């Protein structure tokens, strides 16, 4: 019997080896020559994160304009949403069907494509000092730099801010809080004035991570925080993490109407609560500013203000750090259309197109220098990007700067903190365990 079982296992293992031989293998060497002259013919595929209104027409219009300029080129758009693009990209990657140009976040997300040989090295065309590279802010380019090489084309910059209804603040008689403690103290008067102090929806898990990462930047010394992003050097044992989780729990309990049930609320419901004039504050990305005050919202651009999530008194980290990162595009290293892809992205990031992107209704602050101005962008977007540029450092999103196992542990931990099913110490232990697995 034991012999039979051993033979069965051996056969299964052998079968698996045969299969692994079929399925595996190192990637083919990069084929893309991004410096070559493009041949203006054929199909160019691009995966964007601009599905849905109001963003969808942006790439549609650009593709139509490019095709009109180059009649033998057919631009094939694959447009996904912020949520669906993650699955789409991984499915295309696993089936070796990545398009010529594809969207990316910074951090671990982009690094996976770089180390996997799926992103073309663009240093020769986009590094600072090159003609195209000099049209971008250097920090935006550096966000996609790995081992000294530049891989990404930054499309827009982004940062996280507390958006607030200035009328609600005036009615409640509260000023913009300067410390985290003042923020929590402001919630009582705002609730008394008839507003939900902070609208918050965490059904998808990541909105909690945005609060946590900003609090980590405040409470954890920068060098420790950055070391913890890498599983090889991470310890995740700084007391600042426990403080951050406690502060986060206080904010959820004191300032949201949904409290421990916040995990059952969509982030778009929370967004609507501010736009509809029911909530006084909503923690959001610069990319959302123009949607909040779009036509049809109760909240007008004049009544909309922003401030950086205030740092706790005496926090051990960097109170001038802002959570955020540029987002951009990579060019498939195996694409036969790489020169054409570079040409198309140069067209996308021309100043006029960059200004269009930065203006309402798109409101995506372009990474191109000179695109975001008081004239081109809304007041809030301009103010947000100015603050991003003035920040001592940008700390990337927690779910893209860490490896997926650790990010997932933080995501579950954030939910557990909200519902009260785990203590900060227990959450930290689960993150440490996930990090040990990832090593």
């Amino acid at each position, binding site marked *: 019997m034991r012999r039979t079982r051993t033979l069965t*296992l051996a056969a299964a293992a052998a079968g698996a080896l045969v299969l692994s031989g079929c*399925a595996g293998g190192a990637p083919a060497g990069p084929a893309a020559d991004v410096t070559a002259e493009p041949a203006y013919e054929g199909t160019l595929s691009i995966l964007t994160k601009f599905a849905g209104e109001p963003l969808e027409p942006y790439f549609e219009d650009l593709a139509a304009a490019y095709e009109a300029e180059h009649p033998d080129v057919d631009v094939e758009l694959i447009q996904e949403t912020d949520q669906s693009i993650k699955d789409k990209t991984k499915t295309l990657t696993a089936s070796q069907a990545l398009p010529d140009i594809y969207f990316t976040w910074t951090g671990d997300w982009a690094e*996976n494509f770089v180390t996997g040989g799926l992103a073309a090295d663009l240093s020769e065309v986009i590094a600072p000092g090159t003609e195209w590279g000099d049209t971008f802010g250097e920090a935006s380019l550096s966000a996609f730099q790995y081992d000294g090489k530049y891989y990404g084309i930054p499309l827009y910059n982004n940062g996280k801010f507390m958006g607030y209804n200035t009328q609600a603040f005036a009615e409640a008689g509260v000023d913009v809080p300067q410390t985290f403690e003042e923020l929590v103290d402001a919630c009582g008067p705002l609730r008394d004035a008839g507003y939900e102090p902070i609208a918050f929806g965490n059904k998808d*898990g990541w909105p909690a991570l945005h609060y946590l990462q900003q609090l980590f930047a405040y409470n954890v010394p920068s060098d420790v925080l950055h070391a913890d992003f890498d599983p090889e050097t991470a310890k995740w044992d700084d007391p600042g993490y426990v403080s951050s989780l406690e502060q986060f729990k206080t904010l959820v309990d004191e300032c949201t109407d949904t409290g421990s049930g916040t995990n059952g*609320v969509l982030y778009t419901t929370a967004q609507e609560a501010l736009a509809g004039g029911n909530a006084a504050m909503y923690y959001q990305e610069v990319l959302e500013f123009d949607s909040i005050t779009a036509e049809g919202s109760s909240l007008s651009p004049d009544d909309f203000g922003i401030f950086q999530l205030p740092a706790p008194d005496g926090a051990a980290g960097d109170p001038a750090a802002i959570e955020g990162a540029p987002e951009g595009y990579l060019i498939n290293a195996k694409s036969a259309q790489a020169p054409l892809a570079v040409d198309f992205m140069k067209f996308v990031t021309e100043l006029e197109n960059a200004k269009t992107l930065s203006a309402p209704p798109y409101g995506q602050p372009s990474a191109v220098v000179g695109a975001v101005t008081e004239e081109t962008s809304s007041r809030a977007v301009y103010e947000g990007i100015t603050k991003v540029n003035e920040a001592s450092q940008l700390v990337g999103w927690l779910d893209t700067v860490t490896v997926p*196992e650790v990010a*997932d542990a933080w995501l*579950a931990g954030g939910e557990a903190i909200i*519902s009260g*099913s785990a203590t900060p110490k227990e959450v930290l232990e689960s993150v440490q365990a996930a990090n040990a697995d990832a090593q």
Partner: protein
Amino acid sequence: MSRQQTPTRSDARSGAGFDRPPTLTKAMSNAPGGPVDRNARGWYPKVAGLVWVLPALVVLAVFVYLPLVQNLGFSTQEWDIYSGATEFVGLENYEKLVGDPVFWTALGNNVLYAVLSIVFQVFAALVLAALIESLRSLRWRKALRAIYFVPAAISLTVAGLLFYFIYEPNLGLLNHLLEAIGLGQLAQPWLGQESTAMLAIIAMSQWQGFGYSTLLFAVAIQRIPSELYEAAALDGIGHVRRFFHITLPLVREMTGLMIIVTISGAFQVFNEVMVMTSGGPNNSTQVLATWLYRSGFVRNDFGYAAAIATVIFVVTLLIALAQLWYTRRRRVEF
């Protein structure tokens, strides 16, 4: 007056009393007593038959069995989807399963889902079907069958979204209803806390599937000869005893089938969980399929995801085998 002969089951096996099936080959159409074509009993009919079924076999092999075998292979590997590199790790992914608390939570949720589904979609649905079929008015019977069936016509994704908004803590109908009838203290963030999230999803699923099961049981009850009920009624046997002594035994085939189908469905649950909670909060509503998805597409651990897929396959295979065994063994004939 001559009585018309009806074909029996044994006739069906021999072909007597039924129209002759269409001729497939020349050899098969030879008249009895004529020259015997040796190919008729030899290789030719077998090959011809094989040719007919070959396309289906190829499709089945490529799209069903090959992925199954490939999945087994993937479950013994670490697979980096970015570089395409694979590393054979033997049974490591299966060892990891054993030590993964979320896997056990997911498995427990599937079992809970199966148990509650059997209670509602099998036993409660059977009782409801019996009640509907016991109504005298045909119009009411038809109307009630349609009313109960309507949720089954809604896609699971749509039903999930609908219930997501019903359960919403601030704006949801359920909490407002509880407050309106003076039970405001029972209002909960149904999907937002570990203690109620899974039960809330299962409740939606029962609402969606209950009518379909009821309809199937109604069909099974309609097949029971009415003479049996009439005789029982003449003997003074009440509704409850008629249910237990006539209905229940004579729909046992359908009951068995429904139990197996329900359990099998419970281990393949995915859509409603993804739409309503994505497995949260804190992984409390993970089921095997959503944990598989999360392991692969969020955590990039495709080898581990394949191991979970193998577990789902084994469980559903065992249930399918049980279904085959049961349906062959327990025939109800009237």
